[in-house]
């Protein structure tokens, strides 16, 4: 089997891209998949700390590109899942040290022995973003139910259309069910209607996410975390499973009630 390359992007910064990459990659590894994640944010390396692997870095992606090490040497094995790896970003200031063709070549080298390559795109729509989408078979767009994040997400959808990458699948992150219930937050339906693309998951706002990144342990490991459950569901959808949105038992009773109010159930 040859790997599927999935790029996670957002336009706006701070909406939860890196958290989504760490959690989806871990959830896929929990399901027995061979996963390599690549931190595409050159100069602003972060996926390593969110995954708790910052002390294991010897080589990074620029070392691979510039021939200072072999690809395998830059792949850091996860602490818990032996088939989960991270290729860290370089902390160099030279944004031009990676090109779209470098990303395509690295991903192609990974395809044979991997099931999923997950690329963490930097915020923005410039060089790093272009690098991150260059090799993508599929793009996941992360947004928050908030005006600036949705507007930037729409720009990214437009660029992906122009680049003939097709429409991305939407992850609505940090949805606060109480605010939605009080009509003080855009609902998942509102965001979908505005952006006009397919949904792949809704992740509720959940303090366990911050606790998880404090510890360098993605919340998909926490069976009680609602955000963790949402990310595990997205990982199953990425593997082609038909997981109903807001399945009973996966989310709290309150969450289910809100989804019924919003007409999703």
């Amino acid at each position, binding site marked *: 089997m040859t790997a599927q390359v999935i790029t996670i992007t957002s336009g706006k910064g701070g909406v939860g891209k890196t958290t989504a990459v760490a959690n989806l990659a871990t959830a896929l590894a929990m399901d027995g998949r061979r996963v390599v994640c690549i931190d595409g944010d050159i100069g602003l390396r972060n996926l390593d700390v969110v995954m708790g692997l910052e002390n294991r870095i010897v080589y990074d992606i620029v070392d691979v590109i510039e021939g200072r090490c072999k690809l395998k040497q830059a792949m850091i094995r996860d602490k818990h899942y032996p088939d989960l790896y991270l290729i860290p970003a370089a902390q160099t200031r030279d944004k031009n040290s990676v090109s779209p063709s470098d990303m395509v070549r690295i991903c192609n080298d990974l395809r044979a022995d991997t099931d999923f390559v997950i690329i963490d795109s930097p915020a923005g729509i410039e060089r790093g973003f272009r690098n991150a989408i260059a090799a993508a078979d599929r793009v996941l767009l992360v947004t928050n139910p908030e005006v600036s994040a949705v507007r930037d997400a729409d*720009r990214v959808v437009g660029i992906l*259309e122009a680049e003939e990458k097709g429409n991305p699948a939407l992850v609505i992150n940090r949805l606060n069910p109480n605010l939605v219930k009080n*009509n003080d937050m*855009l609902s998942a339906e*509102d965001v979908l*209607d*505005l952006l*006009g693309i397919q949904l792949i998951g809704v992740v509720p706002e959940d303090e366990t996410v911050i606790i998880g990144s404090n510890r360098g342990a993605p919340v998909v490991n926490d069976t009680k975390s609602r955000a963790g459950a949402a990310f595990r569901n997205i990982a199953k959808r990425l593997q082609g499973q038909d997981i109903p949105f807001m399945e009973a038992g996966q989310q709290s009773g309150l969450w289910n009630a809100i989804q019924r109010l919003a007409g999703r159930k």
Partner: protein
Amino acid sequence: MNFFTRKRSAASAKERLQLVLVHDRTDLTSAQLDALKDDLLKAISQYVDIDPDSVRIGLERDGRTQRLVADIPLRNVSRHRAG
């Protein structure tokens, strides 16, 4: 903040975004859209009699497609004038 203003913030976010996204996607500013409407009306007025006040021209979204939609009622003209 009273009950009614609280109720409306999600709705207001959606309305504002709908407008902003249409302009972002078409790369048309409100001023350009107004100019477009004026030019359209001028062109149409050369052929038919219209009441500018009842004309509605605007951008509408249909999924990810934008449409320029115009509703331009024509004034009735007595038939014998044509003959």
